[in-house]
């Protein structure tokens, strides 16, 4: 077995690296740059029951070591995604993680059911943490009770394992994680973006038309690492870690914190080859570190038996 291969519920991955939801659309654009079959998995853009236009522009703003986005879940609706986008992706030998969003519990259930029936969708990612839409999403993501109810409902209709994507905009990420684990989540995705804002001092107004947006990129990384470190010690389901991953060293940091796989978002924008490059670099780094298998690193920052890594 290659040192990069990982097994997660529903996801048999050649390596632990996938593009993060919303940063990769449905893969077509990046397929112009490299073979998507190189990836461990592909997390695709959020789907809602109906087509959504998203937020007005500007939708992105740059910050120090980060960016804000307020795309607002623009997507062609679950039918179009299930019929046109995902079948296209099936030409690649790569499991798809389909991201599910909505306004109501029924929205989530409908979308989840439809997506989970698509052949190459191997897992769902419940997006209860999108900070950029007025209704749904974020409310589910800040109330453990509602998140649990939603998870239970989606688990009932989904034919594939369900990962719940947690929001960092909370005072206790462990409560959220515990609630959705108990409700049957097969895994966690951590973390979505922090809510932020930039104001253009020339106009006096927020740069984003939506005013606030989600902060992603390197600035988010220490928060992500901390939350994964906390949560991985209190749950027994695996965590897909994300937030500011740019280098193989970052992936190792996320694994040490407690992740079992990672997703790469913002880094794709500055380097379209970010994912395949990271896979190669990770393999080299593990070789240098004398790590037999990437999974061996998972949670070593807190596991009692863990000593120095390079032995």
């Amino acid at each position, binding site marked *: 077995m290659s040192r990069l291969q990982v097994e997660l519920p529903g996801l048999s991955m050649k390596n632990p690296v996938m593009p993060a939801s*919303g*940063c*990769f*659309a449905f893969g*077509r*654009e*990046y397929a*112009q*740059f490299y073979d998507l079959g190189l990836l461990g998995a592909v997390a695709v*853009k959020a789907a809602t029951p109906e*087509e959504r*236009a*998203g937020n007005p*522009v*500007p*939708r*992105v*703003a*740059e910050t*120090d*070591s*980060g*960016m804000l*986005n307020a*795309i607002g879940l*623009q997507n*062609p609706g679950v039918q*179009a995604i299930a019929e046109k986008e995902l079948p296209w992706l099936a030409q690649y030998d790569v499991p798809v993680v389909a991201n599910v969003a909505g306004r109501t519990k029924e929205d989530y259930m409908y979308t989840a059911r439809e997506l989970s029936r698509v052949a190459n969708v191997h897992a769902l990612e419940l997006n209860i943490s999108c900070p950029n839409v007025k209704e749904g999403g974020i409310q589910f993501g800040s109330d453990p009770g509602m998140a649990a109810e939603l998870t239970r409902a989606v688990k009932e209709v989904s034919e594939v394992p369900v990962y719940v994507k947690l929001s960092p905009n909370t005072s206790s990420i462990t409560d959220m994680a515990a609630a959705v684990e108990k409700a049957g989540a097969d895994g966690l995705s951590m973390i979505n973006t922090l809510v932020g804002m930039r104001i253009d001092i020339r106009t006096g107004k927020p*740069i984003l038309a939506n005013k606030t947006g989600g902060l992603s*990129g*390197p600035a988010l990384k220490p928060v992500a690492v901390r939350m994964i470190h906390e949560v991985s010690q209190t749950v027994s389901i695996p965590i897909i870690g994300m937030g500011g991953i*740019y*280098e193989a060293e970052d992936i190792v940091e996320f694994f040490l914190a407690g992740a079992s796989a990672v997703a790469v978002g*913002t880094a*794709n*924008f*500055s*380097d*379209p*080859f970010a994912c395949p490059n990271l896979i190669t670099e990770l393999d080299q780094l593990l070789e240098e570190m004398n790590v037999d298998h990437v999974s061996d690193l998972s949670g070593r920052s807190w596991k009692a038996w863990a000593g120095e890594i390079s032995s």
Partner: protein
Amino acid sequence: MKQRLMQVIGQKETAPGIFEMKLQHDHVRAMQSPGQFVHIKTGTRRHPVLRRPISIADVEDDVLTIIYRVEGEGTKLMKEAVPGSTLDVLGPLGSGFPLPESGRALLIGGGVGIPPLYYLMKALKARGVKVEVILGYRSREQLFKLDDFIELADRVIVTTEDGSFGHQGFVTDAAAEVSAFDQYYACGPGVMLRAVETTFGPSGYVSLEERMGCGIGACLACVCERRDQAEGNTYAKACSDGPVFRAGEVVL
């Protein structure tokens, strides 16, 4: 659409804060469609996080010319690039201006919307199209690239906001001056493009500026609304469906 480290072979400040940079790479030969742009990574791997979209201002063999105004962090880093260093360039991106085989074209550029029109003018002239150009600058001090336009164009009209050179006002204030044309090609800030559509009507093309993330159509940052909303076709992406649109195609 490729990502390449291109060699900076020259750079000069042609007006206060306006820089003209030349980049060399074999891949430049693929940049054949005026109106397309490149997406440039400055600084280090992680900082600044976003690339900067800059129009293709000219291509000669394997040499790409870009012209940019220093605004914020990214363009500040660009101006510091010295000959011999390399710049990470993704492109050509987007779809350029459709080129007619003959006829009369009006080119309308404002500020840093002017650069792509130079490459466009060269392509039009090569096809035997008659080219008239309106160039809008802030003031006499801010003039750039003007001589190169004058050299090739059939006629050049200049406007400056403060009237220190040419006509006083914006590009549309020179409307009364222009000769008959078959189609126009406009590039500049949104407010200028709106005025151009109102003044010159539907027979033309506009090139948009939108804030971008990926630059290749994957992040949905750079959208604009289509006027004609066929099903599943509400929003167009400036980076990959554009930046050039038919006049009236999208809401400006």
